[in-house]
């Protein structure tokens, strides 16, 4: 045991930040859906190659990612719960929120479909039938973006499933993949994001039964943690990352990511997505060739007040919780004017 101290010191040195000769890195707190689908494995090497900045992904639920941001344990967040994101920004924990991409949620369930929801266009009606049939439904139950979206569906259907928790409604407190594993094992219904679903390998009898309802729109936003709150966060590097994600190159990289020929995420920072709202800013103009020289410099201030990507389904959400949406909108407007 006498000889230990020497190699302990060596190991300490390897473990210390100085031991990583790789240099700059940022911590990205993101969701299990983006990690489990394989998006980051395809996306981040391209960013690192371009900028030399390593991105270390910690994949947790959206709720936990936002808490990590509040504690200052992450430099940038890529999450999917717009209400919570806007609150995060309004409370001053994050800088601006930018829409990066979207996909959709799908209601998956056993192929024999005991609740008879297949091909219903209305996801709220579908969960109402599941409740009426009292067939197993597994919920993420972890305060994640998917969990929040699922709770919005129940609210839209006017049902409180939590009162049935433990009988047919089962709250897991697990990530997306673990939840799909459980749903597959107990032939239950669940809500999943299409990205994780397409990349998921252990489907057994599960199939997509309901898709296409505008309520199932799933937008992802990126937020840098506010260096005014946490001076140690790497605001400069996180800015380069956000700029790259929103650049034509980053957006193309998102669009290029496919599993079995199918795109899992759709770029949302393009003006083509909502031309009435987005101005044709310098690097977002699709008529110009892609800016491949380098990532846009952070120093160029962005026109924040005009940068409010409202995608096609945003107005649909107001149908389910109009008051909340207005409040959230007012909140984010206030935070915007204060900068």
């Amino acid at each position: 045991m006498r000889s230990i101290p020497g190699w302990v010191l060596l190991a300490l040195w390897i473990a210390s930040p100085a031991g990583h000769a790789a240099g700059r890195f940022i911590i990205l707190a993101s969701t299990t859906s983006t990690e489990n689908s394989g998006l980051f494995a395809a996306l981040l090497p391209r960013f690192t190659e371009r900028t030399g900045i390593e991105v270390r992904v910690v994949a947790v639920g959206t709720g936990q990612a936002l808490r990590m941001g509040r504690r200052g344990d992450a430099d940038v967040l890529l999450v999917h719960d717009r209400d919570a994101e806007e609150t995060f920004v309004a409370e001053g924990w994050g800088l601006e929120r930018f829409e990066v991409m979207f996909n959709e949620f799908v209601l998956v369930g056993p192929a024999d479909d005991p609740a008879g929801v297949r091909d219903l266009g209305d996801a709220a009606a579908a969960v109402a039938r599941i409740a009426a049939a009292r067939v197993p439904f597994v919920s993420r139950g972890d305060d994640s973006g998917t969990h929040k979206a699922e709770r919005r569906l129940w609210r839209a259907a006017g049902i409180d499933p939590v009162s049935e928790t433990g009988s047919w409604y089962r709250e897991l407190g697990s990530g997306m993949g673990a939840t799909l594993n459980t749903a597959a094992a107990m032939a239950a219904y669940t809500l999943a994001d299409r990205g994780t679903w397409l990349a998921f390998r252990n489907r057994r009898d599960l199939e997509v039964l309901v898709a296409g309802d505008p309520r199932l729109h799933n937008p992802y936003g990126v937020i840098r943690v506010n260096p005014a709150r946490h001076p140690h966060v790497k605001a400069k590097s996180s800015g380069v990352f956000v700029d790259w994600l929103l650049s034509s190159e980053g957006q193309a990289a998102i669009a290029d990511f496919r599993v079995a020929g199918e795109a899992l995420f759709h770029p949302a920072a393009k003006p083509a997505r909502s031309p009435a709202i987005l101005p044709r800013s310098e690097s977002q103009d699709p008529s110009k060739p892609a800016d491949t020289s380098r990532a846009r410099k952070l120093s160029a201030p962005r026109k924040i007040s005009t940068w409010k990507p409202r995608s096609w389904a945003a107005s649909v959400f107001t149908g389910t919780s109009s008051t909340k949406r207005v409040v959230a909108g007012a909140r984010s407007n206030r935070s915007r004017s204060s900068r």
Partner: protein
Amino acid sequence: MQDLVDAFGAAFALLVGLDRDLVEIIARSLWVSSLALALAAGIGLPLGGAVALLRFPGRRVAAVGLNALMGLPPVVVGLVVYLMLSRSGPLGFLGWLFTPMAMVVAQFLLITPIVAALTRQVVEDLWEEYDEQLRSLGASRLRAIPTLLWDGRHRLLTTLLAGFGRAIAEVGAVILVGGNIAHVTRVMTTAIALETSKGDLALALALGIVLLVLSLAINAAAALAGDVARNAEG
């Protein structure tokens, strides 16, 4: 059943092919847990010896406490380490959260009670055996600690292996404080958790088989080293 067959096939392919990512993950698992074990041995062996031999008030309580701490839930340890190392926590300035150091700290806290408690038992048994002999040589209880630790080294090897096994097989704490970051804090167990959540059960199980083979190799090597040492001593 097909999953199991696939898993053994995949495990074999992984071991034979020496996949570069896999080698990296195995190496990280080994050095993180080895460092945690070295630190735990540095504290746990003398601590266990002291609780076994020294007479101080609350000695029985300390012994029971050490035994109880062997059952520390890893998630609780992970949570405490997370809160300590978080930027908003008291040790946040170190910047260790989501680095391998955080995982070493968590594993160290988990296995130090195991090493100390098992060491206490070994040393106490040895003391009963050699009590009179040591006293006749004029050795104080304090002086007897290193003597008995050395004398019990073959039995203590098992103690250390138990600690190492717990450290390298642990997932709840290290995934919390390490973050399972690819190429930074991904170890065998967190990789298994990740593949499971991707639904790639065969690959997850294959990684589990690799971990088991690894553990077997380490224990076999330790047993062999013990035999060689014993024979050399005659």
